[in-house]
């Protein structure tokens, strides 16, 4: 009977250990933030409760050990453990409350809008520069001199990248520029970090305002070079583009 309760506990602990210690060492991976681990563990626990309460028997098998423990019916060493829980539970609540209300020098959690909406005048723009091999090559040349120091070989690993938090965007990642229209990139390159709207706060980007150094035509060429170099296609609504 106790197995119905023990199994979900073991499962939850195993999944926690997997997310906390195994996922970070997988190739091309990194440690998961605690918010995501919490989310996944909540799902595991919810699933366990749902499965355990499908029938009357399994529900009793799941909750009876908890009830027996809490009401002191278990006896033996578990009775002492019950008093321990009784003492520790208020302390846990107190610790949580302290942790969430006490002032701290740690910066708050990140909740940045990475892709804020562009201003109206940049929506619906299409690249006016013909997509010729020459223009793409010219754009790549401009990219190499101006963008590559940070964005590297379109992978966000330029020699200066290590100096930035968050790091420069990786254009080869299919979840970055491949999701955006060319007009969006035009706005971001032209106006840089200082051109971000309030919605994009905190403005954690070192992107220069390239309109001071490049013409609009050159910016469009850089965009073509970027997509070509990263092996991505911009978001369009027309299949022929």
């Amino acid at each position, binding site marked *: 009977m106790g197995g119905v309760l023990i199994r979900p506990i073991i499962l939850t602990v195993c999944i926690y250990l997997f997310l906390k210690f195994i*996922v970070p060492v*997988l190739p*091309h*991976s*990194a*440690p*998961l*933030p*605690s*918010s*995501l681990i919490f*989310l*996944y563990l909540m*799902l*595991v626990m*919810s*699933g366990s409760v*749902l*499965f355990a309460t*499908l*029938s*009357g*028997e399994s*529900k009793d098998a799941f909750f009876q050990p908890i009830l027996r423990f809490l009401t002191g019916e278990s006896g033996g060493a578990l009775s002492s453990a019950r008093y321990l829980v009784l003492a520790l539970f208020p302390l846990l609540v107190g610790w949580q409350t302290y942790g969430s209300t006490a002032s701290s020098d*740690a*910066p*708050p*959690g*990140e*909740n*940045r*809008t*990475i*892709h*804020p*909406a*562009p*201003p*109206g005048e940049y*929506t*619906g723009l299409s690249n006016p520069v013909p997509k010729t091999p020459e223009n793409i090559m010219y754009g790549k040349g401009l990219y190499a001199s101006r963008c590559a120091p940070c964005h590297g070989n379109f992978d966000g690993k330029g020699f200066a990248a290590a100096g930035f*938090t*968050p*790091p420069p965007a990786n254009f080869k*990642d*299919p*979840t970055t520029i*491949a*999701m955006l*229209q060319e*007009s*969006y990139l035009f706005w971001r390159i032209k106006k840089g970090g200082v051109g971000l709207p309030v*919605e994009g706060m905190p403005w954690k980007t070192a992107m220069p305002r390239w309109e001071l150094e490049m013409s609009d035509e050159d910016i469009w060429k850089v965009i073509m070079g970027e997509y070509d170099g990263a092996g991505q*296609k*911009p*978001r*369009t*609504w*027309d*299949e022929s583009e």
Partner: protein
Amino acid sequence: MMDQGLNITNHGRQIAGRMALLAGCAAALGWIGLPDVAFAQEAAAPAPTAYRDLPYIGSRNLVWVVAQLHLLLAGFVLGVPIFAWLCEVVGWKSGDKRYDKLAKEFTKLLTSSYATTALFGGILLFLLIGFYPKLMAYLTDIFFPSFLVYCGLFLVETATLYLYWYGWDAMSEGNGKKFHIFLGFLLNVFAFFIMIVPNSWATFQASPVVIAEGTDFERAWAATWNPTWWPVNIHRIIANVVLGGYICGAYAGIRYLSAKSAEERYHYDWMGYVGNFIGVFGLLPLPFAGYWLMREIYQYNQQMGITLMGGFLSWLFILQAMLIGVLFLGSNYYFWMGITHRIPGSEGQYRKPIMAMLIILLLCLAVWMTPHSLVASLEEAQKMGGTHHPLLGVFGVMSAKMTVSNLMVLVTFMSFIMYWRAGKEDTAGWAKVAKSVMGAVLVLAGLAVIVLGVWGYFVPAIIRINYFSTSQVGIVIFVMLTITPLTALLLKSAKTTTEMVWGKMPPRAGYSLVLNAVMVILLMTLMGYARSSSRVHWHVYGVMRDSSQYAFSPALGYAAALMALNTFLFCMLVAFIFWVATMGDKAKAAASAKGSPEPGRIPAMAGGSQALDGPVAERSEQQGQV
């Protein structure tokens, strides 16, 4: 000379005195008349009032609450006639009187809900005219012809509803029944148009089409046929069916929990099943309709699309994933409990498939709920190299979300098929082949959905949106269209090994029905906020700017509080309507119960009836089968 001089001086003084008097009078008149002139100027060109406000509460908050309640009530009164009519048709065709009784019971709820919806519509209209006179004048100028159409539709809808409800018993047999069913059909046709006409006003605000020339009718028609009108129409009609189904399920759940006799438990258990089935039936195509709507919004305006899907409103879609996830889990849980409790002896047989389906649902939900930009401390973000996780970040985009939503739809469909087949044994000679075909179709479909989802990362966005996502939807529809008729054919010749026993569900089944309804209401309030906020600081996007003091998007926490308030108020309203509508029945039931007291009449509310939750065999002994 001196006298002459004095005379001249006196004369001069007299003239000066008269001049001073005249000047004084003129000054006094001017002083008195000045405000009149000023007022006259004001009267000549009065500044039009663009906005009015309500102290403490705020005009926007009040309109938000009233509009949301009106929309929720409207969703209910437009969704319920669809399945009330379908139930009536099923009852008429099959001869099963339970369906006719069910249809009638919900039509009774409809009459009182209809009046409340119209009442809230009226309040909303007065508030809009009062708080936003300039905007309303603009919208009236464009849409006046459709206002008239709307009034006409309301008249015919009301007349049809009266005939449909009051003529139920009078038209219960023969041609009368046929005419009654025709009235139900008409009711739904008018209801559909009543929904799409105001949809054009709301969608015009988001994606306006304004033509400067033409007749009033031409201008109204152009504004009505705006880019997001049909996507919203389709999305809303499906969502209304879902809302209606789950609210009826919740009603049945509460009645089941408070049922005191086996008969009542039988009836409301069955009604809960029907409500849940209709809710799930609507829920299956809903993600596809939502996807189409978002695609149209994004294509209409990149700014609005990014505000919703990548900007500050994108967090709403994580909340949406959580709510939809709970809804899918709740609906499946109810099916699984139905197998366990209504079909004695089936628990062990179906435990493993249920566990497999639960695991797939949870994995899909984990992917759906994973945001692209994660909430992380500075230290965590540094370790990840930004707020995108290098490995799990791929779960944060549409290709992954579409894949898992399709898989969840497939699993939910299979839950229903499993429930349908439970307690029956195939006797047809071709049953083995049919089951192999169904298994193969299901596995291949699941794999195809996953392959298309992964492949979607490596093709241009337009290919993914136009072909891959639609193919995924097509595959799921193909599975449904293949497995449903095959199962129906198999079951035609199948032998029933265990009869379905109604009225034996544990109390938590009733609670899960209530929870599903609350989730749907929360979802609708959430997406109502998203749709409205995507216009940001525009009353009419790109045409009429919001220049009021409320021309800012409320913070997500503030919005969440208002959504919760709206959900609570709507639940209270519905509870009140149901209470009023069923007051007479309760009085009748109490009067008849006095004559035949039944021992052990304990409601199951709050787990009061432990007997319902014991082992099946034990319960059968205690209560006997119905």
